[in-house]
């Protein structure tokens, strides 16, 4: 039987296909958060005054610091891809290490913020939380849920970036074979994108 090579084989390396897959996955993630944004919007409308009262107590400084941290980490990831394409492997690794460090500081910052709320009993199950007005508790719980899910994505993104470092070290990511790093970068930018909306919704509309 004559051997026929399938020109459009699914088993060949296809960077464009992998990138498309990543984008489609990001759309799913966007709509996952989208459901939460819908809930937020409808309850903000319903509990307008209560939301405002709690929002006034949010610490804009902490939120702003975290915004700067995440945007800076987006920069370092973008630059690491630029560096990798230029063949500057060591620079790329250094930039990703900085990114992971920024991710950690984001989480530390978040930890202090959450523990400060919990210290005041503002978490489900505590006396102070149960005494809140209905809409006020709603705001706080949405805050925990949305920033919590976002924090989970920060951790996943940081793990992905750690894998990128390992693959660069092993020579499995090169300037010619960079799709894994680009996809990890896309994921990281999504984390930033979500935060760009979370920041005004929870901190600035007070």
């Amino acid at each position, binding site marked *: 039987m004559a051997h026929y090579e399938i020109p459009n084989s699914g088993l060949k390396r296809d960077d464009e296909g992998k990138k498309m897959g990543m984008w489609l996955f990001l759309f799913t993630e966007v709509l996952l958060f989208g459901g939460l944004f819908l809930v937020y919007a409808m309850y903000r409308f319903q509990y307008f005054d209560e939301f405002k009262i709690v929002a006034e107590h949010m610490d804009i400084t902490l939120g702003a610091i975290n915004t700067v941290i995440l*945007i800076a980490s987006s920069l370092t990831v973008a630059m690491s891809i630029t560096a990798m394409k230029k063949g500057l492997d060591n620079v790329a690794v250094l930039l990703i290490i900085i990114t992971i460090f920024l991710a950690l500081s984001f989480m530390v910052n978040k930890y202090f913020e959450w523990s400060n709320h919990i210290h005041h009993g503002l978490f489900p199950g505590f006396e102070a939380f149960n005494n809140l007005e209905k809409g006020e508790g709603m705001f706080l719980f949405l805050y925990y849920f949305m920033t919590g899910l976002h924090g989970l994505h920060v951790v996943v993104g940081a793990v992905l970036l750690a894998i990128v470092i390992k693959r660069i070290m092993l020579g499995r990511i090169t300037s010619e074979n960079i799709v894994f790093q680009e996809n990890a970068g896309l994921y990281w930018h999504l984390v930033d994108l979500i935060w760009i909306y979370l920041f005004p919704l929870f901190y600035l509309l007070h």
Partner: protein
Amino acid sequence: MSKHEHTPSFKSDLITFGLLMLLTAITIWASYATGGTTVLAVLVAMGIATVKATLVVRNFMHIKYDDIIYKLFIGAVIIIFGVFITLLAVDYFYR
């Protein structure tokens, strides 16, 4: 499909970062200037967030170099989400 070759540069990454920082500063300032929870404040905050998001998607996520199909995809997602929020609003606004 031919890939349009582009030379990535640190400079454009840094310019994007600068713009994002500037917009962050503006949105914090605007939240005080617009009084926090007025309709104007919501529009300004969401508007600036959308400009920032566009910058990230276009420059950091390299949509400006990508095939047109990705722009169509993103447009479709935005439209679908817009449908959700509009129809929900029709219920909540009139209830």
